[in-house]
């Protein structure tokens, strides 16, 4: 890898529309003052509020970079970046629409049919249509290529059978984009996979929520018992599922949600540090801020490259690994500088954020590709 070339290539083109950040902040201030939401850590996965998503849709902040004919605003991806980082930094409840807006939308724009785009994108941009992602299976976790959920050709469509697991918000979403086996795996194991957009109300779909150790049940197992999926809901090309899934990953892995999950904890930490620990706080906090500035630079520079049509896959993967480590190091710093008993019903914001973070943290380095898988991907890219 030619990092010195990257050093030369990066340019200060990150430009956001004047006033946009301010506009988002004013909106969030008003919502907070009105008490419509309570900030939380890990809000992009656990802060579920469809009415809040709808308000964002009304303001045109979902699908900001999409074409107007699909409900977008035809603004840059960098403007979108501004909106989402403001929402994340505040711990706003964005989980309902998050996957649909981040992942399904761009995927539809890239691979979807005209019919799919006109049907789904405007509803996603309004904050009314939520989509889950069906990738992992009970027997296929990190080894995604081994998926066994199958789609069998029938008159007018496909019959899907199998089960997906670790699907966030499946019980409250409208569709699930499902990776299915439609043909032979081939020598490289990556052939014969296809993506289908499956209506979660279809007969034969059963959603079984999975309660996590923190009490949240955003995950679910989704069982497909001979579910009929019409032809027009095949996403992209038959047999191109693997390539399509991988194309999403640069978006999925480099975003600010990969390092801001514990930001509310970092912001409240200073007020809880005892006088004994102030000196240590001064050094530790500065180091955390340095890391955060670096991560934001990396993530924003990838957003720039994506905006220019490049797909910096390896760099995006690095942001995810470094970012989730940072999220954990915020928790470590909090435990060091202002330790608490990690209570179920914490008395104040800091304690609440700490409990939320401690219990959510094990998943930071699992979701979106485990640390071990990511490092394998990076290394293979380096030595290839």
């Amino acid at each position, binding site marked *: *890898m030619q*990092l*010195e070339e*990257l*050093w030369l*290539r*990066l*340019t*200060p083109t990150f430009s956001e529309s004047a006033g946009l*950040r*301010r506009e988002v*902040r004013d909106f*969030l*201030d008003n919502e*907070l*003052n009105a008490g419509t939401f309570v*900030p939380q850590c890990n809000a992009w996965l656990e802060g579920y509020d469809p009415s809040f998503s709808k308000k964002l849709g009304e303001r045109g902040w979902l699908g900001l970079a999409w074409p107007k004919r699909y409900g977008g605003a035809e603004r840059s991806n960098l403007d979108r970046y501004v909106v989402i*980082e403001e929402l994340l*930094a*505040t*711990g706003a409840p964005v989980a309902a629409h998050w996957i649909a807006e981040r992942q399904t939308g761009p995927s539809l724009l890239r691979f979807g049919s005209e019919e799919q785009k006109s049907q789904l994108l405007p509803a996603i941009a309004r904050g009314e249509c939520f989509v889950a992602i069906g990738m992992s299976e009970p027997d296929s976790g990190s080894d995604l290529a081994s998926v066994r959920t199958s789609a069998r050709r029938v008159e007018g469509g496909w019959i899907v059978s199998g089960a997906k697991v670790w699907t966030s918000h499946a019980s409250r979403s409208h569709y699930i984009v499902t990776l299915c086996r439609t043909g032979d795996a081939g020598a490289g194991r990556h052939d014969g996979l296809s993506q289908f957009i499956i209506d979660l109300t279809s007969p034969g779909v059963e959603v079984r929520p999975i309660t996590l150790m923190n009490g949240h049940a955003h995950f679910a197992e989704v069982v497909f018992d001979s579910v009929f999926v019409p032809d027009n809901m095949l996403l992209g090309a038959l047999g191109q599922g693997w390539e399509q899934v991988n194309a999403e990953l640069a978006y999925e892995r480099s975003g600010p949600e990969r390092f801001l999950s514990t930001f*509310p904890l*970092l*912001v*409240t*930490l*200073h*007020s809880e540090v005892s006088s004994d620990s102030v000196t240590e*706080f*001064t*050094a530790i*906090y*500065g*180091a955390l*801020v*340095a*890391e*955060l*500035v*670096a*991560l*934001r*630079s*990396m993530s*924003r*520079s990838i957003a720039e490259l994506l905006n220019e049509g490049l797909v910096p896959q*390896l*760099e995006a993967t*690095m942001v995810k*690994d*470094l970012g989730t480590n940072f999220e954990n190091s915020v928790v470590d710093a909090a435990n060091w500088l202002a330790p608490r008993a990690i209570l179920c019903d914490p008395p104040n*914001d*800091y304690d609440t954020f700490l409990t939320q973070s401690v219990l959510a943290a094990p998943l930071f380095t699992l979701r979106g590709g485990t640390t*071990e898988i990511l*490092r*394998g991907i990076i*290394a*293979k890219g*380096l*030595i290839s």
Partner: protein
Amino acid sequence: MSDDQLLLRDTVHKILSPDKSFSKDETVAHWPSQTWVELENAGMTGVGINELSGGSGGSILDVAIMAFESGRNAALTPLVETAMLAGWLVEMADWSWTGGVETLGIAASATFDALREDTTIVLSGKVLDVPWARFAKRVILVLELNGDTVIAQLLPEVYSIEPGLNVAGEPRDTLILKDVRLDADHWIVSPIFSDDIRRRCAFARAISSAGAMSSILDMTIDFAKDRQQFGRPIAKFQAVQHLLAQLAEEVFASVVSTRMALDAISTGGGDLEAMSAIVRVARAATKVARISHQVHGAIGATEEYSLHHYTKRLWSWRNEFGGEAAWSRAITEHVHEHGGPEHLWSILTDEPGVKSRLNLLIPTVD
């Protein structure tokens, strides 16, 4: 980056890179006469120094390109000191450039005394770790005097030198001054604080470190692909692959954070970004050196193999002009001075004074 800047990069790289005959004995000072003449002839030693002062002109990005290339080639020259450090202050003081090697020293009050008599200042004491001082035509000295930061120019006849070297063979000399009297032509009250100057110096080292790391990454990947154990290249082993991935991540973080800080500085700010880059790169330097040596095995720690020329620089540069902890504390102070930790997000996103939404939920603590 403009075409001119790409040309600058290539020019510096061409001059510095053929000289891979690294100094055999790094415990002895070596003057890179041939390299320096080539740099001078190409006008590189005056980059960043105003044309009116006798330099070649250029922006901070131009001098940063040279700093990055110096690190990438583990070059043994005072190019960074002359162009990016001393040259910057020479221009600030509106002095003319000597056209030769210049460097910068920062006097610590513990070992240095300064007093003022009318328009004359009188200086005594030691200035430690002045890079390349023994080869300099002039040392630009930064010192504190009656609450002001003073920038002074010292010609070789006013000081003596106790020679010192860092482990990479780069001179880090001690300047000794005994009742040196400087008239008004030789000093100014600095328009910026000594911490700002120290930050510039540490940032220059961070940029060079990022350059050194990019070479270390290439060397380490090549080595891992080449070196066979248990019948296959060690790059095929997952444990080694994870080291390589983490190595690349650290280099990536260093490259991007220095580059983005330069952009922030170019647009008239960048204090926080520069300090963050210094801290991030210092952290990365430790990890990059550790991992690259681990992957290379014992051969990487031998005098014969070139890795140590890069890692020794990282170890030295990471600690110069403050070090990781001091700059971490400075970042926290910066946050306090710009509204406090409850405004961290506004501070990061460059909108001072905008209240963090989270702050609404937190009782104000004094």
